[in-house]
């Protein structure tokens, strides 16, 4: 649980630093002038952006807990009288998949830059490529599952193998959720009446989400390779 506790402590630290130390020195019982009052209130950042970052914190908590469970179960499996933890030899296709996801993330960033420049065609193409690369990644993950099944058979009692399936499935499920938003954005973009400005936020958020899930995958992949 130490990883999760450290993660929560880090988040707490950021929260305290960002929001509280600056703001909580205020003396709310004292009055402000009208001009000061009119300047006060919530920040101007779009709620969807704030909502996404909060969601990413939740997803981080989820993956941190999965990884904590992984390391604790591995420690348990290596205990003197257990020896039931047998490392999985990861299929080589995972390297190719990782490359696809990196490219997908780059394409999303490209779409983000294109929409900022107002280039509709390029935005559409880069967005499309980003999503297709991600679909390729998911197909590759399924292939990796199949390769593993052929190589070692499906033995749910093997904890390392079970974790491999669970971690990749949870990561893939999050990407699928992202692809739903991606598909909606793409469909909206194909409508002629949709202005580029209307979908800029969606593309921005997609790019952030893709980068984040790439980071999560790289951490997971490293963990799986290292253990």
């Amino acid at each position, binding site marked *: *649980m130490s990883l*999760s*506790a450290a993660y*929560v*402590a880090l*988040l*707490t630290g950021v*929260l*305290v630093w960002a*929001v*509280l130390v600056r*703001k*909580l020195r*205020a*003396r*709310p*019982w*004292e*009055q*402000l002038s*009208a001009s000061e*009052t*009119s*300047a*006060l*209130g*919530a*920040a*101007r*950042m779009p*709620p*969807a952006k*704030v*909502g996404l970052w*909060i*969601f990413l*914190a*939740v997803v981080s*908590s*989820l993956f941190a*807990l*999965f990884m904590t*469970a992984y390391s*604790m*179960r591995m420690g*348990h*499996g290596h*205990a003197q009288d*257990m*020896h*039931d933890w047998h490392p999985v030899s990861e299929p080589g296709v995972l390297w190719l998949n990782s490359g696809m996801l990196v490219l997908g993330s780059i394409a999303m960033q490209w779409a983000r830059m294109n929409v900022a420049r107002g280039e509709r065609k390029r935005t559409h193409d880069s967005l499309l490529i980003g999503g297709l690369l991600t679909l390729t990644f998911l197909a590759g993950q399924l292939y990796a599952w199949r390769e593993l099944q052929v190589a070692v058979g499906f033995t*749910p*009692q*093997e*904890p390392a193998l*079970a974790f491999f399936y*669970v971690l990749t499935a*949870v990561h893939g499920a999050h990407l699928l959720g992202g692809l739903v938003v991606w598909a909606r954005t793409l469909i909206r973009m194909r409508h002629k009446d949709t202005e580029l400005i209307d979908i800029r936020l969606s593309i921005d958020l997609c790019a952030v989400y893709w980068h984040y899930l790439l980071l999560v995958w790289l951490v997971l992949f490293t963990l799986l390779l290292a253990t």
Partner: protein
Amino acid sequence: MSFVAIADRDHEHALHDPQTFVRKYIWSQDHKVIAVQYGIVAICIGLVALVMSVLMRLQLGFPHVFSLIDPNDYYQYITMHGMIMVIYLLTALFLGGFGNYLIPLMCGSRDMVFPYMNMLSFWFYLLAVLILVVGFFVPGGPTGAGWTLYPPQSILPGTPGASWGIICMLASLAVFIVAFTMGGLNYVTTVLQARCRGMTLMRMPLTVWGIFMASILGLLAFPALFVSAIMMTLDALVGTSFFLPAISSMGKTMPHTGGSPLLFQHLFWFFGHPEVYIVALPAFGIVSDLLSTHARRNIFGYRMMVWAILAIGCLSFVVWAHHMYVSGMNPYFGFFFATTTLIIAVPTAIKVYNWVLTVWRGDVHLTLPMLFALGFIFTFVNGGLTGLFLGNVTVDVPLSGTYFVVAHFHMVMGVSPILVVFGAIYHWYPKITGRMLNETLGRIHFWCTFLGTYAIYLPMHYMGILGVPRRYYAYSSAIDFIPPSVQTANRWITISALFVASVQMVFLFNLVWSYFRGKPAGGNPWKSTTLEWQTTDTPPKHGNWGKDLPVVHRWAYDYSVPGAPDDFIPQNVPVDAHAPASHDSGKHT
């Protein structure tokens, strides 16, 4: 560019156009309707849990008189009662109910920032409740593993509901967590992004602070339950060995290898302890506002109260293993967790002092919300003190399997927050419906509930110190150390429990009767300062504020301000000669 509140931008207005009946009351995106939907479903499923507790008490008090339930039922009812009360009633009611209703109104917003997701949150919650209820009708009935669902017994034959029941429970929890995440994202983002002009974080009422922090806790802690639910489902359905060790069950060797039941306990309590504060922090916030309003006095130590909420929230993530002293973990862990548990008592005690000092020499109005708030302080102190006993390893080990834990837990986590729920309903019902609840019925409800719960739980402390084990369906005469007086106490507890349970019908009757026949409340019957009482309509309409959003000029606690014509100044009243600034000396900080 001048400041434009997010809730006041053009696209927000479009969400609040007049709607059809179905869009207004069924598939509603209005936070007030969603709050009431959450409240009704939570109370309904809470009543199911209440009935189960009555059946259990009949068994314990009069084991040879009633034969309503068998041992399997008893374990199933223990499990479902605990889970429903903690998750599906209290969490849902405080955050889905009060959070939904109060955040936009108290922050001066038109609605939650993601209304559609808010609506989905309720429907997912309802789905979670329905899946839970389906558990009663599947072969084998609901799970009887205890509300902590500890493996290996929760999914092994011999435990009631070990096949379908536990799957329904885990599926229901997973759906609930999805619902909560959608709701929690809304609550946090709305507080951060949709406050009206002038509403700084440090001008927010403590109710909003409590709900805000509880939502953050929930968002970070519920994933632990989600992770354990997924892994346990796989252990049960696919045969993985995340939690299940190599084990023989009913004479049969199971296929599992070396899973770790302790891992489940860590995950469960990593969620479970913050869950205590997910329920407690909104209660703390609400009770602060009830005390201040009905004692006509500014809250004592506002800044300290905010810091205490934050400190409790952060510390709640490092005390989880005090629920696991008897699990066989490393004794040094016990020392660490006992220390953190005692540390978390400090900000909690600060809050209690501040509540008492808020009431001290105030113009106390013994209204119904005030009675319940005072009842909460009394009960919370009692429950908190026994928590100090149980927080210490050497005291907890002999007591943890006894009724002392049942008594402590129910005082601090059951009765205390429920008293706040009642106080809050008596306080905000006039805003929600436009009518006052009946005062006489309310007083009957308060005194019978308050005194009745002490009649139930005080004897349980005594039984716990005698060593009477909990979780037993019946006490055989072969258990020599249990004196006959325990059975007398059990009868007394059962009669008290029946009495308290039946008094809740008075409350339900009052809710329905007052909706039609209650005295009209007016806009601000408690002469309160916070924004929800300053709406143009009562109950507030879609969009809450008519054409213009309010502007906040002061904090939420300007009561009994010297020189002011009334003993309260609403937050949206500008500072001038008639509504002076108050407490400039900061003497109550």
